């Protein structure tokens, strides 16, 4: 991940670390903090704890978002301090609703100059964001809001498993992960496990990120912690709840970063510090999908 980050990300870039609750690339966020970027634009429907940490570390000049909170718990305190008090630095915000953020990524993924969205009518938000525009419906007398494409310089995406080419099987909540990969100029893919290509080839419908999109493939187990990987480990709800306290002041948050980000060399050290017991407590009982018969039509892949 260290090489993948340093080779693909440049200061000033727009990044999208994707995943809607599920498969959030925390380890990549921590590595970005360690590499000391300080002029990034971060885009994400839900900034979540990972962007809160990057903001507190001073990596960020701008955030594009649609819901900035700690789901089920409370605030993103670093995000609020930056917006409300300019701590540690002023950040600009570009704000949408979820469907509009998702539509921006989809337009980017689909090569479209805009997508219409059925929202914003009667909301104050368009007054504060001039990328949200309104056009005539060419088939009626009404008007509809539109948003332009979002094409991140780099998307960091996670999936459960991939082959070495980066063809990735993704299941559970897919959120905006495939769209982020298709919309971006460069893609870093991190997976819970690298598997033989025959595993991926057995089920092409489950490949939501094809390898031709991917610049770097990184095998990084538990790299979504405290977010989760469906079937691999549960969401660490205690860590989400603990963030409320750990992030309550800027100083306390910096101590947290010192301990959990700067003082560990990489994600493996982070996991060692977390401890095997904690990881084991997050392990779900295994339950497997029912097989689907794809049929052995070709010798080229499925029975090489």
């Amino acid at each position, binding site marked *: 991940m260290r090489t993948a980050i340093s080779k693909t990300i440049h200061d000033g870039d727009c990044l999208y670390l994707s995943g809607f609750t599920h498969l959030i690339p925390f380890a990549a966020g921590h590595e970005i903090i360690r590499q000391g970027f300080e002029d990034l634009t971060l885009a994400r429907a839900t900034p979540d704890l990972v962007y809160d940490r990057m903001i507190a570390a001073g990596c960020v000049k701008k955030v594009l978002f649609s819901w900035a909170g700690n789901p089920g718990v409370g605030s993103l305190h670093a995000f609020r301090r930056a917006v409300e008090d300019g701590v540690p630095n002023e950040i600009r915000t570009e704000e949408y609703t979820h469907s509009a953020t998702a539509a921006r990524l989809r337009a980017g993924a689909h090569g479209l100059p805009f997508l219409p969205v059925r929202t914003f*009518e009667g909301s104050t938000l368009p007054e504060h964001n001039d990328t949200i525009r309104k056009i005539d419906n060419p088939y009626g007398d009404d008007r509809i809001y539109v948003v332009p494409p979002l094409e991140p310089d780099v998307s960091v995406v996670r999936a459960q498993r991939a082959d070495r080419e980066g063809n990735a099987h993704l299941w559970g909540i897919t959120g905006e992960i495939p769209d982020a990969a298709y919309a971006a100029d460069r893609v870093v893919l991190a997976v819970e496990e690298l598997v033989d290509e025959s595993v991926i080839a057995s089920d092409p419908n489950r490949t939501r990120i094809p390898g031709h999109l991917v610049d770097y493939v990184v095998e990084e187990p538990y790299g979504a912690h405290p977010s989760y990987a469906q079937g691999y480990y549960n969401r660490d709800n205690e860590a989400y709840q603990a963030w409320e306290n750990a992030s309550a002041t800027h100083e306390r948050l910096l101590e947290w970063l010192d301990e959990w980000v700067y003082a560990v060399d990489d994600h493996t050290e982070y996991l060692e510090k977390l401890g095997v017991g904690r990881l084991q407590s997050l392990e779900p009982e295994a339950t497997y999908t029912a097989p689907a018969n794809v049929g052995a039509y070709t010798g080229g892949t499925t029975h090489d």
Partner: protein
Amino acid sequence: MTEYTKSELMVASAAREIHDDDAVFVGIGVPTLACGLAKQLHAPNLTMIYESGTIDTTFDELPLSIGDPELAGGSRSIVSLYDVFCKYLQAGRIDVGFLGGAQIDRYGNINSTVIGDYDDPTVRLPGSGGACEIASNANRTVIITPHEPRRLPESVDFATSPGHVTTDDEPTRSGSPEAIITDKAIMRFDESGDANVESIHPGVRPDEVQQATGWELSLDGVDETAEPKEKELDIIRNRLDPNRRYTG
């Protein structure tokens, strides 16, 4: 009559807003419990849809977030973030949506963006998420909120999610709030888009309701909110929220 908490009453009241065969865009907390309760009782065919894209979801343990793994594992289908808004909300498939917010006005406009000025806020709130879409596209929106003066001001600082707006020159969809369920009363929107008190909860005085509301209410002859039934409380306590996370 058994004792019950305000939250239990709110859950039971919210459940009554759901009809059988409804498709509900569910949030965490009271909405999830209300759906769970309705499904056990009068709405066995309701379909629960979460913003995270999990379609027709059932669960054993209450989720902490709308994207928890049990919602995915317990669903019948999973769609992308973009698609859940397009195929469900935009396409008009959602009968009931639940919303909350820091401020709600008499027309059902909801603020979950900022307190104070947008560019220099006193309090930066999380923002819309999918709330504006729910308000804009669900057939009926039910608002759940504690009943406090700061929560129910005469007007909101910022309209994150539209209430009963009328834009004369543009016949596009607007919000469609149906009711506000608080810990003191149930208000329902009339044809002109105004929220009126329909019932006051048992043990709450009319003047308490008025004092906690930022606009003048007509309180003569309003009903008393129906109490939760034994069966409802049993389901809430023993099946839906045994750890009293939301209803204690």
